[in-house]
């Protein structure tokens, strides 16, 4: 499903709704098209309008000016709020929103009002649990509160995935997770993106994470899109890095160094070098040139 933002501005202040130009706006004149199947990261400092932007996409907020189009339709204008059901939204620390006594009931919460039979519900919950790599038989009767942090988060994600969204929005999905759980979560998101064609959008402050997983980065500053493009290109841009107070991610710095040393050809954007690989490449280079350190 394509999402299009057409000249979207937003302010929380009711007084200034008619005068967004002068009022304290959170988002200002945003134009954007998100194509189906993208892996998109959203970055920006606190208070830059990231959460508001995401809430507009989910329909929790309506734009003060402009329009949000889902598959070419403005759900607010067309009075079709059910279109927003195709957008799954996972808040920060989604495990805090678990409530049922069993994992099955928690995941099936969204299916209660869908008029499905028990067999259909079970099939969908099974599918959702498989998507988040939770074994159905092992976990279905467990209390969600007894699970580990990573497992709880998977249950919460399954609760959204079960509704078969076409777009999945996650607000800082890796906050509070250890490295192993973070890797597992992104394997999961990549799997859903690749196999089901789900558009995945997430907010992140981790540049390494963006670099490793996103195919598109949007950088927000004071309610405006300051940059939109491939993370490898944007995060190599010293002007942009300075504007956000970011440091060049080590992986990119290593790649640049390798380019300068002639180990990697310039212009190679798709390959990121780990410190281990880089050190081996540099040792190889020194060896070839018979330089002793």
């Amino acid at each position, binding site marked *: 499903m394509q999402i299009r933002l057409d000249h979207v501005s937003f302010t929380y202040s009711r007084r200034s709704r008619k005068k967004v130009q002068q009022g304290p706006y959170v988002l200002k004149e945003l134009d954007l098209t998100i194509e189906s199947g993208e892996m998109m990261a959203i970055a920006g400092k606190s208070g830059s309008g990231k959460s508001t932007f995401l809430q507009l996409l989910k329909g*929790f907020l309506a734009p003060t000016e402009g329009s949000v189009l889902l598959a070419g339709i403005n759900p607010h204008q067309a009075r079709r709020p059910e279109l927003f059901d195709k957008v*799954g939204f996972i808040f920060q620390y989604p495990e805090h929103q678990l*409530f049922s006594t069993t994992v099955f009931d928690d995941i099936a919460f*969204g299916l209660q*009002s*869908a008029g499905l039979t028990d067999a259909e519900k079970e099939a969908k919950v099974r599918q959702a649990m498989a998507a988040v790599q939770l074994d159905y038989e092992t976990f279905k009767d467990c209390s969600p509160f007894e699970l580990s942090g990573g497992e709880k988060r998977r249950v*919460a994600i399954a609760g959204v995935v079960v*509704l078969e969204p076409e777009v999945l929005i996650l607000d800082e999905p890796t906050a509070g997770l250890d490295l192993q759980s973070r890797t597992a979560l992104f394997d999961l998101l990549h799997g859903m993106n690749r196999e089901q064609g789900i558009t995945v959008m997430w907010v992140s402050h981790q540049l390494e994470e963006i670099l490793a997983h996103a195919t598109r980065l949007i950088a927000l500053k004071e309610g405006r899109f300051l940059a939109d493009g491939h993370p490898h290109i944007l995060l190599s841009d010293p002007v942009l890095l300075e504007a956000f107070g970011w440091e060049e991610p080590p992986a990119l710095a290593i790649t640049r160094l390798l380019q300068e040393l002639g180990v990697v050809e310039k212009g190679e954007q798709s390959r990121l070098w780990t410190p281990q690989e880089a050190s081996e490449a540099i040792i190889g280079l020194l060896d070839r040139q018979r330089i002793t350190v």
Partner: protein
Amino acid sequence: MAGTSFLLYQKRNSWLERWDPRMKIIAVLLFGAALLLTHSLGLKTAQLLLLIVLWGVAKLSWRVLVFTLLSLSIFFASTMIYQSVLTAVPGEDMITWGWLTFSAQGVIRGVMMCEQIAGIVLLLALLVRTTSPIVLAEGLEMLLKPLKKWRLPVHEAVMMFSIALRFLPILIEEFDKIRKAQLARGGGFHRKGVASRFRGVLPMLMPLFVMSIIRAKDLAVAMESRCYQGDEGRTPIRIYRLQRSDYAVFSFSIVNLAAIFVL
């Protein structure tokens, strides 16, 4: 956010904010007593008008005032029905309006009762919205100090009260977040029938309850890690001294209370 700003104290540098918290609490008690004890419609109306004037003096939002009064409309409506229709005493002047028959004296009783409800709510809203929770707690603790002689845990009780007050807006924000999260994974249950909406209440209350406990636990740990041990050995950070305006407020509150016995 509207809900949270309704309950929050916001610094506006108004005259009411400069009042001593002890005198403010005493004035609220005396004014509340006067409001409840008076049987004169004129006096009750005058007291309510005075509170509205004070709302303006405190530089508080008129929109919030209207919101506060509108939120009480169900109480106003039920009070008016109860007083004028259901508890009409034989012998009172009865008015017939279409199919409805009600007592004229009952209407006056209802109006007085509504003014009383609105007055008490505005009085407390003024106190909470013009006094920061910490100052309010300190004022309350100083007033209740004599009870410590009977080994009553005044400091702890007041600390609990002040924490509860500060937790309200946090809980409202938390509730809003949980509500949105559950709507996001609810499959549109909120757009369906009453039964479906009712089923959606538990998913909001349960996480809120769990979050409240987690927050309370975190706060307790944070307080302990900063060496908080209750009242023992604590010294005040602010020293309060009564000013002329505080005495004036106190005098006015006494006169206001006395007026109901004289008039």
